């Protein structure tokens, strides 16, 4: 049976996903609170996998928590920390517990996180992980052995539409789709005219595209991302708009901008939905959705 998220993607409706960040520690209250807050509003929730290589509660555990609390989880899986045995094992575990959406990522360098001396794995890459999911759906493991019970996933991957140079990125994007990615979440996009050009190209492929929307919380944060986050380009006019917000009003302004962008994406049917990343501010996702006219 297709997952609820898969059904939403196939229904043709404007799909909205968000994120829950697993806790640093075993106190899961905050996560559970965010699940409660968002589960009836969004179509699915990504559970991040040691995001930015910072060690946290596992995405698999977080996805279970979403499931147990009535939400629809998208299990993020990176290739940074597990070899192909461990990744396949975790896919089987997830499938056996009703977690049937997976986002396949390469993963950040261990050096960017809080355990810099750890051994990085990268036995597989994101496209090979997508391919592994498909292989396991056919009832085989990666070595070609029979599985007693296959898996079933709606599998996705990511793309950075504003990467420079763009062509190597697009070659990888096409490989992910070829490997079986059904949906693609994008890195944050702010310049919708640029994004439309990307979509003109991406439309030819049989994959649903969810535009990444990162909530801006201050002009400084926007400038920081421009300088430090690969493939993220906040245009000057948005930075100016954030900077002009009255003291204490930056978050409100960020919500307004995110809402406005989402409304435009939906209105102009630029792509199939959005993936909202309100990093550390999951509380305001419903406000962003309201600002976009989605609630």
């Amino acid at each position, binding site marked *: 049976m297709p997952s609820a998220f898969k059904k939403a993607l196939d229904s043709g409706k404007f799909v909205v996903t968000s994120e829950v960040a697993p806790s640093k520690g075993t106190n899961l209250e905050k996560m559970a609170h965010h699940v409660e807050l968002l589960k009836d509003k969004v179509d699915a929730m990504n559970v991040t996998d040691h995001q930015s290589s910072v060690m946290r509660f596992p995405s698999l555990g977080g996805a279970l928590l979403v499931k147990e609390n009535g939400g629809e989880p998208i299990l993020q899986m990176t290739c940074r920390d597990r070899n*192909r045995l461990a990744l396949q094992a975790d896919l089987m575990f997830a499938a056996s517990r009703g977690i049937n959406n997976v986002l396949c*990522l*390469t*993963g*950040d*360098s261990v*050096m*960017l996180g809080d355990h810099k001396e750890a051994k*990085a794995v*990268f*036995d*597989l*890459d*994101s*496209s*090979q992980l997508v*391919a*592994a999911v498909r292989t396991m759906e056919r009832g085989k493991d*990666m070595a070609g052995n029979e599985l007693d019970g296959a898996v079933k996933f709606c599998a996705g991957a*990511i793309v*950075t539409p504003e*990467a*420079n*140079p763009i*062509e*190597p*990125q697009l*070659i*990888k994007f*096409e*490989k992910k789709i*070829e*490997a079986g990615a059904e949906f693609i979440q994008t*890195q944050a996009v702010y310049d919708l005219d640029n994004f439309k050009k990307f979509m003109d190209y991406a439309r030819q492929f049989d994959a649903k595209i969810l535009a990444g929307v990162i909530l801006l919380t201050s002009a400084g944060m926007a400038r920081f991302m421009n300088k430090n986050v*690969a*493939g993220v380009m906040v245009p000057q006019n948005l930075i100016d708009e954030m900077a002009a917000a009255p003291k204490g009003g930056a978050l409100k302004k960020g919500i307004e901008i995110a809402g406005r962008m989402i409304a435009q994406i939906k209105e102009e049917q630029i792509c199939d939905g959005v993936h909202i990343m309100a990093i550390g501010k999951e509380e305001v996702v419903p406000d962003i959705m309201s600002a976009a006219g989605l609630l």
Partner: protein
Amino acid sequence: MIRSITQQKPMEEIEHLLEGMDRIFVIGCGTCTTLTRTGGVEQVAAMAEDLSARGKVLTGTTVVPVACDNLAADILSEFGARMNQADALLVMSCAYGVQTMASQLGQMVVPAQNTLFIGKENAAGQFNEICTQCGTCVIGETGGICPVTTCHKGLVNGPCGGTNNGKCEIDSNKDCAWTMIYNRLKELDRLDSMRTYKKPRNHLGEPGPGKFLIPAE
């Protein structure tokens, strides 16, 4: 030309490794660590001075021509007495030389260096790691640039999301391997090679530790 690239360990670590060993004989190498200025004549002299200042007794110093050569032990035999007086040999070659000494001399050896990688000199004084001897060479499909080594994550299907203006996510001074590979293949009009999906890598080239015997004629 390939060279073993080394970096001297912090003196605190060397001191810790030499704890309880008062008399030291220092051995440098006339090949790689001379070239990289981490274990040549000057560095050996500086090390001897530093150790003396830290209260060690230097029983002698020398720089052998090639520390990883099995002949190194013969060459060192002229220092036999002075080496025997030492509690430890502090070796300022790469780890190949240190292990050669350890296996031949029957004395406690302590490395003064961290061996970083086998580097190729690309420009005067600039070395790059371009092969990690993975045992299943894939560069026939990547325009002769090694993604296993040159890509920080060893990715074989194209760039990760961290690639930024042609640089790697871990260091804006490091070229992204996949921008390099893309440019090279484009030049050669062989981008199809990059478009082809590569299966997960085979890590079973030569199970470590690698071992090779020249077949008898």
